[in-house]
C-alpha cells in the first residue's frame, strides 16, 4: 500500500456547483409551473408566436429559392425558432446582438428586413448594411469567433457606464472553441454586461453532442468562468424569453455576465448544402418533432382562447405576403458595380489600390 494519505473521498470538498433548468410549457402546451409575469401579456405571446411562424415560413421560401438557383447556401432555423426569438425579444433596441449564421429569427425580430437577409445569403454584402440596430453585428460564420467581440463591446459599455448589454448567440459546436471560453473567461473577470447563449441543437453538422463534449451540460461551462449558467428548454419560448430577460437584466444592473444553454433540436439539415440523412437516423428526427416550439405555444394560446384556426390562416397569408414582397425586392436588386468591392475596404482607398479599382472598372 502506498502512503498517499487519506482516500480521495475523505478529502474535504471545497466547492460545489449546480445548474438549474427552466421550463414552463410542456410540449402539449400545458403549464408546468407558475408562468413569468410577462406571460400575462397575451399580446406579447402572440407576437412571439407570429415571429416564430414568420421565420419558419420564410425559411421554406428561402430553401425554395436556393433549390431553384436564386439564393446561395442557406441555414434554416427549423425547430429552434424559440431560442432566437425568445432572446431577441428580451433585448432593448440599444443593446447589441452578435448572432451566429442560424439566427435569422433574432435579426428579423430586431428589425432586419427579410429582403436584406436574402440579399446577404444571395451573395451581396449590402445585406449586412441592414436596417436593424446600427451597431448589431452581422451573421458570424467562423464558429464562435464573435464571442470575443461581444466581450469587447460589453467592455466599452462598462467603460462608458452605459446601461447596455451585448448578447452573443452561438451553437453547441462553438463551445468547443477557445474563442468562446476565452471570451467568457474575460467577461467573468471584468463582470461585463454580456449574455452568452448557446443554442444546443444537438448537432454540429454531422457531429453529435456526445462527440463534442463529455460535459453533462453546456451550461456548466460558465461555472469555470465564474458566473451562472442556466439550462433552458429551448423549445419553450416563454422559458427562453424569461431566462434571457433575467440574464439581460442582471447584466444591465452590473451583476456581470450570464450564460444560457437553450436545449433544442435541429430538425432541418445544417444548411442547404447538407444532407443530414447521411449521418442522422430519420426516426431520431421524427421523435423530436413532438417537442418543437411553434405547436407548443399554439396549443397554449389556443387553450386560452387567444388563437384559433382563422387567426392561423390569416397569419400564414400575412407572412406569405410579407415574404413575397421581400423576395420581389431582393430579386429586383441588381449586383453592385464590380469596382465597389474596393469601396469599403478602407475608410479611404489607399492610393496603391486605385489602379486596381480602375482595372476592374474597365472590365476584361
Amino acid at each position, binding site marked *: 500500500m502506498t502512503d498517499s494519505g487519506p482516500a480521495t473521498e475523505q478529502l474535504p470538498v471545497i466547492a460545489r456547483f449546480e445548474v438549474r433548468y427552466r421550463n414552463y410549457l410542456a410540449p402539449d402546451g400545458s403549464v408546468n409551473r407558475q408562468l413569468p409575469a410577462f406571460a400575462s401579456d397575451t399580446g406579447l405571446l402572440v407576437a412571439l408566436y407570429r415571429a416564430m411562424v414568420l421565420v419558419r415560413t420564410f425559411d421554406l421560401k428561402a430553401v425554395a429559392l436556393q433549390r431553384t438557383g436564386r439564393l446561395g447556401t442557406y441555414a434554416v432555423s427549423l425547430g429552434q425558432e424559440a431560442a432566437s426569438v425568445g432572446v431577441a425579444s428580451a433585448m432593448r433596441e440599444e443593446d447589441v446582438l452578435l448572432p451566429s449564421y442560424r439566427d435569422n429569427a433574432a435579426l428579423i425580430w430586431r428589425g432586419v428586413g427579410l429582403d436584406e437577409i436574402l440579399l446577404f445569403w444571395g451573395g451581396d454584402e449590402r445585406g449586412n448594411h441592414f436596417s436593424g440596430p446600427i451597431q448589431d453585428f452581422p451573421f458570424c460564420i467562423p464558429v464562435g469567433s464573435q464571442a*470575443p467581440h461581444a466581450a469587447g463591446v460589453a467592455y*466599452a459599455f462598462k467603460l462608458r457606464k452605459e446601461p447596455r448589454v451585448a448578447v452573443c448567440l452561438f451553437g453547441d459546436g462553438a463551445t468547443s472553441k477557445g474563442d468562446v471560453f476565452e471570451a467568457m473567461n474575460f467577461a467573468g473577470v471584468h463582470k461585463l454586461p454580456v449574455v452568452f447563449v448557446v443554442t444546443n441543437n444537438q448537432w454540429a453538422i454531422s457531429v453529435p453532442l456526445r462527440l463534442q463534449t463529455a460535459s453533462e451540460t453546456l451550461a456548466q461551462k460558465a461555472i469555470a468562468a465564474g458566473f451562472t449558467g442556466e439550462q433552458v428548454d429551448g423549445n419553450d419560448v416563454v422559458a427562453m424569453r424569461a431566462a434571457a430577460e433575467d440574464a439581460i437584466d442582471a447584466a444591465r444592473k452590473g451583476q456581470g455576465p450570464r450564460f444560457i444553454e437553450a436545449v433544442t433540436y435541429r430538425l432541418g439539415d445544417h444548411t442547404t448544402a447538407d444532407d443530414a440523412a447521411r449521418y442522422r437516423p430519420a426516426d431520431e428526427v421524427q421523435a423530436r418533432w413532438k417537442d418543437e416550439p411553434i405547436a407548443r405555444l399554439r396549443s397554449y394560446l389556443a387553450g386560452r382562447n387567444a388563437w384559433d384556426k382563422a387567426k392561423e390562416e390569416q397569419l400564414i397569408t400575412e407572412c406569405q405576403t410579407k415574404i413575397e414582397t421581400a423576395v420581389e425586392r431582393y430579386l429586383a436588386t441588381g449586383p453592385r458595380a464590380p469596382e465597389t468591392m474596393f469601396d469599403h475596404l478602407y475608410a479611404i482607398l489607399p492610393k496603391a489600390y486605385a489602379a486596381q479599382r480602375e482595372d476592374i472598372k474597365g472590365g476584361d
Partner: protein
Amino acid sequence: MPQVTLVEAVNMALARAMEDDPSVVVLGEDVGINGGVFRATVGLQQRFGAQRVLDTPLAELLISGVCVGMATQGLRPVGEIQFMGFIYPCIDQLVNHASRLRNRTQGRLSCPMVLRVPHGGGIRAPEHHSESAEAMLAHIPGLRVVIPSSPERAYGLLLAAIRDPDPVVFLEPTRIYRTAKSEVEDNGEALPLDVAFVLREGRDVTLISWGAMVKETLGAAEALDAEGISAEVIDLATLKPYDEETLLGSVTKTGRCVVVHEAARTGGFGAEIAAFVAERGLTSLLAPIARVTGYDTVIPLPRLEQHYIPSVGRIVAAGRKACQFT
C-alpha cells in the same frame, strides 16, 4: 530635447494618444503594473487607470477579438502581443474580422484598432519569440502593416496608427528597441502612413528595407560609399499599402534594387517588392533585382541567429554585385 530609445518613443506615443483621446484603451498581457515585458506601457496604468490600461488573461486570440468588439463601439483599442511568435492565434480575428468588418457591413461597422507586436530576432530570446511574419500580415486585404525603424518614426507612426480609422498591425523591431536613440519631441504630431522614408540619397543602387534591418542597410550604404558606390536607402515603414511611387522613383533613378529583410526568403515581402519593380520599372533596371534575406529555415535559437539575420557584409556584397553587373 532628451534622447529616447525606440521603446521609450512607443511609450511616449501611447501616453500622448491616451491623453489626447479618452477612447484610447491599452490592453494585453502584463501591460498594467508591470508596464509590459519590454516596458513599452510603463507608467500608463498609474496615469490612466486600470480600466483604460488593462491586463488581459493570457489569451492572444482574446486580445485581438476584444479589440475588434471595442473598436466597433468607437473605442480606439491598442492591443499588445508580447512577441511575434505569439501572434498566430490572432490570425483568425485579423483575417476574418478586423480587416473585413468594414467591407462585410459596407461601412456600417468599422475597426479602428492597433495590434502592437514586437518583431524579429537578435535579442537572444527563447524559442518562438523571434519571428518576422510581416509578409503573412501584409497579404491580408483591409489591414495596414506598419513597422518603424527609429524612435521618431516609432512615435509618429504609432500616433498615426492609433488615429487611423482602420485596423493596423504595428510591428516593433525588438533588436533596436533600446539601441536606437534619438531626440523625439512629444508634440503629438503623427507621421504619414503609406509613405516610405528616404533615409539616404544615392545614385547607383536603391537599398530597400524596414524595421531593425534598416540599421544594417544604412551600415552597408556607408561601406559601399567607401567603395565609391552611392546607395540610396529607403525605409518602407508601411508595408501594406506600400509607397509605390517612392520605390519606383528611386529605382528609376539608380537602376538597381536590393531588398533587405530578416524574414525567410520564399514568399517574403521582398518578393512583392521585386515583383512590383519588375512589373513597373523593368526598363530602368541595369541589374537583376537582389534579395538579401533570412534563409528559408526556421530562425535558429540564439546560438546561431546572428548567422541567419542578414549582415552588413551580405548587403554590401549584393549592392556591389548589382553595380558590377554588365
